[in-house]
C-alpha cells in the first residue's frame, strides 16, 4: 500500500513540474516577441508580393526583375526566396532560402525530412523532390547526365522530378513548391520488381 502511494505521489509531482515548466516557457515566449522583429518580415513579404505581381502582369518585366529588386534597396531582404515543401502526408512548410543555396541544404536547415545520404555528391537519389508546377520545373536548367543517372534510381520518379541538391535557389524560383515523394507507395511485396544494383 505504501509503495502505491509513494508512486502516485511521485507521478503527481512530476506532472505538476512538467505543466508548470511548460506554462512558464510559453508565457516567456508569448511575452517576449519584440515588435521590432515583425517589421523587416513585413517588408520582405511585401517585396515578394510585388515581385510575384509583376511576374503575372508583364512578362517582359522578368528580365529586369533582379536589378529592379536590388534597386528597391535593402539587399538583405532580396537575398532569399520563398520555397514551400510538401511532405508525403500533404503537410506544407514555407521556408526562406538564401539565393545560391541548394534545396537540400535549405531543407536540412529547416528540419524538413529530406534525406541526403551522399550529402550532395550526386551519388544517390535520396534527396529526390518533385517540382509541383511545370512552369517552375521548366525554369530549371536541364539535369546533367550525372543527375539523370541518379534520378533513374529515384523512388516515385515523375516528369518533374529533380534532385534537391542540384536545385539551387535563384530569384526566378521564388514561390516554388517541392513535394517529397511518397516513399512506400510503390513498395509492394508481391509483384515487386527489384531494382538493379
Amino acid at each position, binding site marked *: *500500500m505504501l*509503495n*502505491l502511494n509513494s*508512486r*502516485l505521489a511521485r*507521478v503527481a509531482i*512530476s*506532472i505538476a513540474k512538467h505543466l508548470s515548466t511548460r506554462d512558464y516557457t510559453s508565457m516567456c515566449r508569448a511575452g517576449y516577441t519584440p515588435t521590432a522583429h515583425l517589421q523587416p518580415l513585413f517588408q520582405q513579404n511585401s517585396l515578394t508580393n510585388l515581385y510575384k505581381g509583376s511576374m503575372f502582369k508583364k512578362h517582359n518585366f522578368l528580365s529586369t526583375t533582379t536589378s529592379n529588386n536590388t534597386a528597391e534597396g535593402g539587399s538583405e531582404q532580396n537575398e532569399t526566396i520563398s520555397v514551400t515543401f510538401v511532405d508525403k502526408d500533404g503537410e506544407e512548410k514555407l521556408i526562406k532560402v538564401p539565393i545560391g543555396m541548394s534545396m537540400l541544404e535549405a531543407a536540412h536547415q529547416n528540419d524538413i525530412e529530406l*534525406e541526403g*545520404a*551522399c*550529402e550532395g*555528391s*550526386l*551519388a*544517390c*537519389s*535520396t534527396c529526390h523532390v518533385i517540382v509541383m508546377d511545370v512552369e517552375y520545373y521548366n525554369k530549371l536548367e536541364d539535369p546533367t*547526365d*550525372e543527375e*539523370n*543517372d*541518379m534520378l*533513374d*534510381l529515384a*523512388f516515385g*520518379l515523375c516528369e518533374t522530378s529533380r534532385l534537391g541538391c542540384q536545385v539551387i535557389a535563384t530569384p526566378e524560383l521564388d514561390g516554388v513548391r517541392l513535394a517529397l515523394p511518397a*516513399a*512506400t507507395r510503390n*513498395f509492394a*511485396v508481391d509483384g*515487386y520488381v*527489384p*531494382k*538493379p*544494383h
Partner: protein
Amino acid sequence: MFNMRIFRARKLLCRSFSNTLHSEPLRVCVVGSGPAGCYTAEKMLKAREQAQVDIIDRLPTPFGLVRSGVAPDHPETKIVVNQFSRVAQHERCSFFGNVTLGSSVSLSELRRLYHVVVLAYGAESDRNLGIPGENLKGVLSAREFVWWYNGHPDGQNLDPDLKSTDTAVILGQGNVALDVARILLRPTSELATTDIASHALATLEESSIRVVYLVGRRGPAQAACTAKELREVLGIKNLDISIQESDLILTPADEEELKSNRIHRRIFELLSKAATSRPRHAGLNQRRLHFVFFRKPDSFQESKDNTGHVSGVRFEKTVLESVGPGKQIAVGTGEFEDIKCGIVLKSIGYKSVPVDGLPFDHKKGIVPNDEGRVLSDTSDTAALEEGLYVCGWLKRGPTGIVATNLYCAEETVSSILEDLENGVLISSTAALKPGRNGLLKLMHDRNVRIVSFNDWEKIDSEERRLGSSRNKPREKLATWNELLTATAEGTEYST
C-alpha cells in the same frame, strides 16, 4: 491474495500512466549494421521516444556493404556512413561489434532479451550455377573477390591468381560485375589513391589480365547494371570497348520493355553509342572489355595439364522467349561457343544464410515475411512470429542500392509500430525485458569481446592515420587480429 491485488493494481497503473510517464523503454535489437540495419535503427529511435536500440554485427567494423561492398573508387557512395555514425552514436543507441548471431548469441536468446528483434544481416553467400567444373581452381565468386579487394577480414585468403592468364570472364552484367571488371582493368595508379586493400593493390599491380568479358544470358535491353556504373566503365582511360552491333537489334518485345523502363532505355542508349565508336588504341598490352550477350554458361573447362585449373567457359547461345508482359527469359538454342580464360568470376547474385530457429524460404533465399513481419513458414497458413522482423536483403533478396533500404526500413518500422498499437506485439509496459543489460551480461559470461562504437573509432583513426602516409583515405586493417588489436590500443599518435 493481497499481493495479487497489488500486482494487478500496479500493472493497471503502469498501463494508464504509460503515455505520460517515463514508461519502460521499448527494447529493440537490430542484427546487422549495414544500410538496412542503420536505417531501421534510425527510424525506430525517431518513432519511439523511449526506444532503446542495440545494433549488433559479427564484424568489429560497422556499416556492412558500405564498407565491404562499395568499390574503393566510389568514395561518394560511402558518405552515408556519416549519417549511420550519428545513428550509432545516438544516446539511446548502442553498437556491439564482434557479436555473431548463431554463435555469440542465439536467435531465441535475443527474442527473450528484447521486445523487438529486426534481422538485417544481408546475404553472405552465393547463388550457384550448378554446372560442371564449378569447383575448378580459378572459378571464384564475385562476392569473395569484392571482399578481397575491400579488405574484409574473411576475404583475406582468397589469393586470386591474376598472373597466369591475360583473360578473365565475368558471368553477369549487374553493377557488381561492372565493379569487378573496372577493378581488373583500371590503371592501378588510379587505384593506389583509394581505400583498396593493399594486398589487393599489390596483386593487381602484377596482374597480367588485359581482356575481360562481361557475359549476360540475355540482351542489352535486359542488362542489369545502371547508368552511372556503365558510363564509368566505358570511360576508363585507354580501354577499348567491344560490343557486337548485331546484339543491339531490338525485337518488338524488347521495344515494349524499353518503352516503360527509363533505366533500361538509358543503358541501351549507352551501349549502342559504345558499339559504334571505334577502338581508340590498338597495340600490345592493350586492355579490352567485351560485352557479350545471349550466352548462358554450360560448363567450365579444365586445363589440359590436369592441374584442376579452369581454362575456359563453354556457353550455349540463347534466344529470348516471352513469359509474360514485359518479361523475357533466355532459352538455349543448342548451339555452343567457348571463351578461353584463366579466371572466372561469377556475379550472378548473392544469397542469404539462415540461422537456427529462423524460418527460411530456400527457393527465394529470403526469410518469409509480410511487410517485414517474419512468418513461421512459406505456406498460406503461416503464423506471425511475434517480435521478429526483417529488413534489407534478408527480406527482399539481394537487389537494390543503399537507398532502397531507406524505404525497406520505413516499411518494416511501420509494421512494428502498427503491431505495437494493435497489441499484436507485446509492449514494453506489458512485459519487461532485460534488453541491453541482459545482452551485455550474457556476452560477458560467454567471454565475447564486444567492440563498441568507440572501439570502432579507434580502428577508424588508425586506418586513416596509416592511409595518410600512403596518400590513401585509409589503409584498411584486413585481418581479425589487426582489427581487434586496434580496439585495444589507445589513440596514441605515433609518426
